[in-house]
């Protein structure tokens, strides 16, 4: 069996992950290491009057005053209306959210560090908090960053001739939608262990990150060190989802203290810190007006999007990536001509917004897909028919949409048709009627999206980011014993990249993946990469490994030709051997000749050797678009408001599937997170900005019993623009569940004449809406 591209092989990393042999930051123990605990702000908004360290603890407790030589995290952007923020790793002058770090305490153990943290006294003059992003836009709202004169990180405007449509469109549908603030909840939270390595003259930082090379840049800039003085090592990372793709304030303060004290210092985020200070994603509000013809054909869309960004702008992705993506991606897979969109990225007294798996698209997909169903109801047609008619037809590919997104390939309407077929739309309406007669409320919902993956240099540059990804590099090498080493500066934290990159190398070199070792995440030994985000890992790192492996395969052939007395063109690689007709030499023979017995090779041998580093960028810079349709059948219990998912079908097209099993795992995991977004997860605040969901008893994640048995189908439309036709897929499945499930809920609730337009659709929300509808009916009847 070959282990190249397309092979359904088990993951190389799973043995250590599943048997407790993996090495996370929390598993590393260095001599003289101490632990850190943070004193965090107890109030949402306030001015720091005093911080008092306990007696005799000046060298164990650190505040902004101690870290006076550190540069704040400041993500600049070239976008016109942008306001930048300064985030000090330990709050200086003001605190802007509950959970913001105020002081760092060190002790031999975490418990002792927490004992110490309790004794630190902080005096804060409270200021009125800004909790509601819509109110924060108002003129008299309290200000987070006074110097701006408002609470707006960014506003954007995309103009279109909506006014004409308003006069002429036969069907107008107006809605407001909202999505809750969420925490990403990777199994492993953040964690950082820093120490000064005197021999290397380097600050060595083990940190749980998706982007080690970026963090190296961030740490060196904020700490004023040359990049050569910083080495960042991301060991095993227990989930990222975007939470770990930005420079973390804790990475800076821990590094500073480690350097100052000369002691290895470690901090491990606990779940409570995560649920309070990591409540940083997903919260959007939409005001949409859609214009359509009598058949529900979309003519135009007028949108106002408000993103509740929180207090600071994260580095390097800024506070604007979310709204930029939301505004740009709202039209999604649909083909229509007129679009107008205002976006507001609003500062509130909450943790700093960080892009989460799907970045903005779970929100836009939810808003757009509910709107499509609302239009269908308005014109009295089956929503999936209306959906199919509005999607970009296959015949128009490649297609540039209203926001200038370049859709490279695919058949979007067919993905809906596939889900219709597999989930059984044809027989469903009759079944639904019958169930209603028995007092049971079933509903069906669909949701289609495109996922821009591996967007390149120009896309990021257009978003105004301070740091723009370019080429991706990888190194592939044959060891003296004929096995293969792959090095990539990207990182794997659950996506299985260790396996899939080995498969790509195996595709060219034909060596079994069990003999291919993949090293990632250590800036000391891997080529530069901006890291793993934006579903770019497989496309970019995969492409780079592919290119390097291809060049290396050529070199192998050259050496093999010497040994087999033929020309390189005569050589064929198979089963980890070089063949000339029926004669062959193994990789071990070739490697031995090159490394140990070069006397066997001719004098004019090519000296470049069996180690190749190559850079890669896809043929286009605009990203390659994966797409999918999700379909759900739900039953709503109108007495309890509980929603159960009876069936869930996903049809997706992500180009070449490097490892189908890993892809399925990504789909199941992503859809599970999407179900959390749709039905369960919600960070709640009281009027003072105090989080009410600071334990997992209050912040409800879906568990195995709440999940459906996902079913999955695939098309493989290869991207014409990437190596092997690969498209990114890591984020996709998290995008659509909100739309599919809530469309299904609303379909089920049609007899009540109500719609749910906010997620999560908790029993309380659903039942509340049903009860209010009942009261209304009683009152009007």
């Amino acid at each position, binding site marked *: 069996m070959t282990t190249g591209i397309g092979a359904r092989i088990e993951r190389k990393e799973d043995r250590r992950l599943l048997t407790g042999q993996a090495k996370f930051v929390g598993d590393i123990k260095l001599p003289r290491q101490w632990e850190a605990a943070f004193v965090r702000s107890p109030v949402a908004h306030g001015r720091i009057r005093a911080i008092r360290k306990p007696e005799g603890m000046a060298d164990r407790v650190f505040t902004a005053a101690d870290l006076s030589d550190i540069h704040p995290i400041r993500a600049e952007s070239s976008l016109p209306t942008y306001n930048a923020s300064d985030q000090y790793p330990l709050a200086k002058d003001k605190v802007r959210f509950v959970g913001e770090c105020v002081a760092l305490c060190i002790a031999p153990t*975490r*418990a002792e560090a*927490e*004992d110490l943290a*309790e004794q630190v006294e902080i005096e804060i003059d409270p200021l009125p908090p800004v909790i509601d992003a819509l109110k924060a836009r108002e003129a008299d709202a309290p200000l987070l960053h006074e110097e701006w004169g408002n609470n707006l990180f960014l506003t954007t405007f995309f103009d279109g001739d909506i006014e004409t449509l308003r006069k002429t469109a036969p069907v107008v549908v107006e809605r407001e939608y909202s999505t809750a603030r969420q925490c990403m909840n990777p199994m492993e939270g953040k964690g950082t262990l820093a120490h000064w390595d005197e021999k290397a003259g380097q600050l060595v930082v083990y940190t749980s990150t998706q982007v080690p090379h970026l963090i190296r840049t961030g740490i060196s800039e904020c700490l004023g060190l040359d990049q050569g003085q910083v080495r960042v090592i991301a060991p095993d990372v227990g989930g990222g989802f975007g939470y770990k793709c930005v420079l973390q304030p804790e990475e800076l303060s821990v590094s500073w203290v480690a350097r100052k004290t000369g002691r290895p210092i470690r901090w491990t985020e*606990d*779940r*409570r810190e995560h649920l309070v200070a990591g409540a940083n994603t997903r919260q959007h509000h939409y005001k949409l007006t859609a214009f359509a013809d009598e058949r529900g054909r979309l003519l135009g869309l007028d949108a106002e999007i408000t993103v509740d960004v929180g207090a600071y702008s994260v580095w390097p992705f800024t506070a604007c990536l979310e709204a930029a993506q939301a505004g740009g991606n709202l039209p999604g897979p649909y083909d229509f001509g007129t679009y107008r969109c205002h976006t507001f990225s609003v500062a509130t007294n909450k943790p700093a917004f960080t892009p989460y798996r799907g970045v903005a698209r779970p929100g836009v997909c939810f808003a757009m897909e509910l709107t499509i169903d609302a239009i269908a109801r308005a014109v009295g047609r089956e929503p999936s028919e209306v959906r199919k008619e509005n999607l970009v037809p296959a015949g128009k590919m490649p297609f540039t949409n209203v926001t200038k997104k370049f859709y490279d390939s695919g058949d979007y309407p067919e993905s809906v048709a596939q889900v219709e077929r597999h989930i059984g739309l044809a027989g469903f309406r009759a079944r639904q009627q019958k169930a209603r007669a028995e007092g049971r409320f079933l509903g069906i919902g669909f949701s289609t999206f495109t996922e821009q993956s591996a967007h390149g240099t120009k896309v990021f540059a257009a978003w105004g980011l301070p740091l723009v990804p370019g080429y991706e590099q990888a190194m592939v090498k044959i060891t003296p014993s004929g096995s293969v080493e792959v090095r990539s500066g990207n990182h794997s934290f659950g996506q299985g990249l260790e396996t899939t990159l080995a498969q790509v190398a195996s595709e060219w070199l034909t060596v079994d993946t069990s003999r291919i070792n993949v090293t990632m995440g250590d800036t000391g030994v891997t080529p530069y990469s901006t890291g793993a985000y934006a579903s770019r890992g497989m496309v970019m790192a995969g492409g780079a490994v592919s290119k390097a492996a291809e060049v290396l395969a050529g070199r192998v052939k050259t050496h093999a030709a010497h040994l087999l007395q033929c020309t390189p063109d005569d050589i064929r690689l198979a089963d980890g051997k070089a063949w000339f007709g029926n004669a062959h030499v193994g990789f071990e023979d070739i490697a031995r000749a090159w490394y140990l017995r070069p006397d066997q090779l001719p004098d004019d041998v090519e000296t470049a050797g069996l180690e190749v580093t190559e850079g890669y960028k896809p043929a286009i810079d605009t990203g390659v678009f994966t797409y999918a349709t999700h379909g759900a059948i739900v039953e709503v219990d109108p*007495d*309890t*408001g*509980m929603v159960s998912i009876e069936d869930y079908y996903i049809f997706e097209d992500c180009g070449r599937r490097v490892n189908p099993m890993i892809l399925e795992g990504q789909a199941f995991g992503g859809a599970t997170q999407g179900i959390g977004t749709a039905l*369960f997860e919600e960070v709640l605040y009281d009027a003072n900005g105090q989080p009410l969901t600071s*334990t997992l*008893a209050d912040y*409800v994640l*879906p*568990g195995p*019993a*709440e999940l459906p048995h996902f079913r999955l189908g695939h098309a493989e439309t290869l991207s014409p623009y990437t190596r092997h036709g690969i498209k990114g897929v890591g984020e996709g499945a998290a995008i659509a569940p909100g739309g599919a499930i809530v469309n299904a809920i609303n379909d089920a609730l049609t007899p009540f004449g109500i719609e749910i337009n906010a997620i999560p659709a*908790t*029993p*309380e929300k659903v*039942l*509340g809406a049903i*009860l209010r509808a009942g009261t209304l009916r009683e009152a009007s009847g």
Partner: protein
Amino acid sequence: MKPSPFEISCPGSLDAAHKALHENPRGTRIISGGQSLGPMLNLRLARPSRLVDVTGLSGLAEIRQTDSHVEIGAAVTHARIEDGEVPDPIPGMLRHVAAGIAYRAVRNRGTIGGSLCHADPAADWVTAMTALGATLLVRDGSGGAREIPMSGFMLGAYRTSMAEDEILTTVRVPRHSDRARWGYYKICRKVGEFADAIAGFVADPESRVCRVVFGSTGGAPLVSTELAQQIATTGAVPPLDTVKTVLRDSGLTLSDVKIHQLAIAHSRAVTEALSDA
């Protein structure tokens, strides 16, 4: 999330446990399975300087049966009850309730006594034991013992009528006749989480017992004699509106959604109890 420093002692006898409690009643807490106290310690919401572990006390892990009662030691775990180690005071109810608490990992350590003493309004045993008319045996520091009926045990959220120096030793559950029926229904957002609404119903024609209890009301379980009487006389499930009126008039602060969920839990519990008659 590490607790503040504490010592822990594991006495072998009630007297030794009481002695430990007596030395510093304010700073000492009893710990049983630690499934409620543990999180409170880690969140530093509870900060005792000493813990007294009662799981090793003689008799506390025992299960006995008399002619009239089943007696469950306070330190008997939910898992043991789930697995059927406790004789049935009424066929199947204890196993059903135990199996619905949290996850197996929590049930392996969490105990019936700990659950009752913790007095979480949304917990299961406080409601189920009220429906079953159980009494609690407690011992004080001077060796005195008293019985507290469930109806007078829980005073409010996390408040009971036990004194600081009292230890719960035994839960006494009356044995019901073969003709007894029960229903227990809870509405949970997620398997293993605390319920949003609980209703318990127990009726025994032989002993002329009929009890209706609501749990997860934000305070002590709510007992409705009015509904119980109505069911006893009509043998039918009361209409939803009647139940809602009872809940609305209960004096508790309950949202419309909560009232509806409690009323639905009630009718499902009673329907279940009456349907297999």
